[in-house]
């Protein structure tokens, strides 16, 4: 059974098609780049997978099931916005994750927090947006999930942190798990991708193995992307 499968998935808002007949499968053990410009439907697709929206037609299957309690046990999702209760302290949110997710490893979370010099006794309101985003990434990567979905994990971070984030992603996803990384900053991450899904105007325009595409086009994924979506 595929880890994730989208079948004829479409989503409309006010009769406008944001996603139009999306079909793809993601097997286990892959790092997949969901690549597209801003506002092309990447986040809508991710929200549909995470039960934050309901499809207009078609369906999303996670391990063969539509989004629900079972799928949420499998998916560790990093949204593009800060989603924690800002009145909480860092250690409270670690406890929160520990309470709700059976696969959460709080020791790992505390280790990653100290690696990034984030104080567990700090209140989230006292943290900058960048710090809050790091806390969220740590929480998400401290789960032993089957599917990690990271929506723009590299937006607005400095290069050193970017490297740390990529390391964290690489070293923390377990065998048999898959990672979906949505981004428009392709050059930074293309080296770690197995497969890419190019999405534009709500449609999938290219999918394939990253190395195959490099071989065929004789250039980087970033360059392929730039050529394809030249303004």
């Amino acid at each position, binding site marked *: 059974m595929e880890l994730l499968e989208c079948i004829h998935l479409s989503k409309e808002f006010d009769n406008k098609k944001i996603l139009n007949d999306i079909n793809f499968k993601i097997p286990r*053990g*892959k*790092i997949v780049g969901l690549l597209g410009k801003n506002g092309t439907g990447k986040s809508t697709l991710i929200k549909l997978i995470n039960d934050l929206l309901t499809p207009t037609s078609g369906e999303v299957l996670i391990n063969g099931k539509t989004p629900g309690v079972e799928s949420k046990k499998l998916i560790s999702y990093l949204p593009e916005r800060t989603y924690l209760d800002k009145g909480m302290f860092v250690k409270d949110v670690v406890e929160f994750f520990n309470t709700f997710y059976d696969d959460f490893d709080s020791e790992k979370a505390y280790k990653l927090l100290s690696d990034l010099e984030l104080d567990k006794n700090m209140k989230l309101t006292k943290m900058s947006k960048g710090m809050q985003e790091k806390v969220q990434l740590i929480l998400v990567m401290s789960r032993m999930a089957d599917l990690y979905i990271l929506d723009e994990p590299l937006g607005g971070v400095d290069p050193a942190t970017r*490297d740390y984030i*990529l*390391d964290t992603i*690489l*070293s923390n996803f377990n*065998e048999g798990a898959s990672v979906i990384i949505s981004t428009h900053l392709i*050059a930074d991450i*293309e*080296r*770690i*991708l*197995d497969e890419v899904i190019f999405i534009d105007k709500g449609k999938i325009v290219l999918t394939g193995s*990253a*190395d*195959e595409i*490099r*071989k065929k086009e*004789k*250039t*980087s*994924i*970033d*360059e392929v992307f730039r050529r394809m979506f030249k303004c």
Partner: protein
Amino acid sequence: MKFNFDNERPIYIQLVEQLRIGILTSEFGVGEKIPSVRELAMLAKVNPNTMQKALAELEEEKLIYTERTNGKFVTKDVKLIKKIRDNLAKEKANEFFSSMKKIGMDENETIDYLRELIK
């Protein structure tokens, strides 16, 4: 061992090249155990699947072999390593000669020039 990549060519091919050089330069010595796929992937900051693919390629070349429970090792076949080094050396030398040719020096002139240079 340090890895460097450009994004223009398939990553696994670049990994194969650099790992091969690692073996030729004894970074991974004859018969030595090499790190696990995961460790190597972390070292190179690449996807473990890609590293796996590169190692499979080296295994095909017989430069490394797998011991069922112990992991992967560099070949003990010194002759093979030498042969691969020779191949690579030939390739590099040919590249060098052809680039010298481009600036107007034939093979004999190039060899004389090199002799002069290392005196």
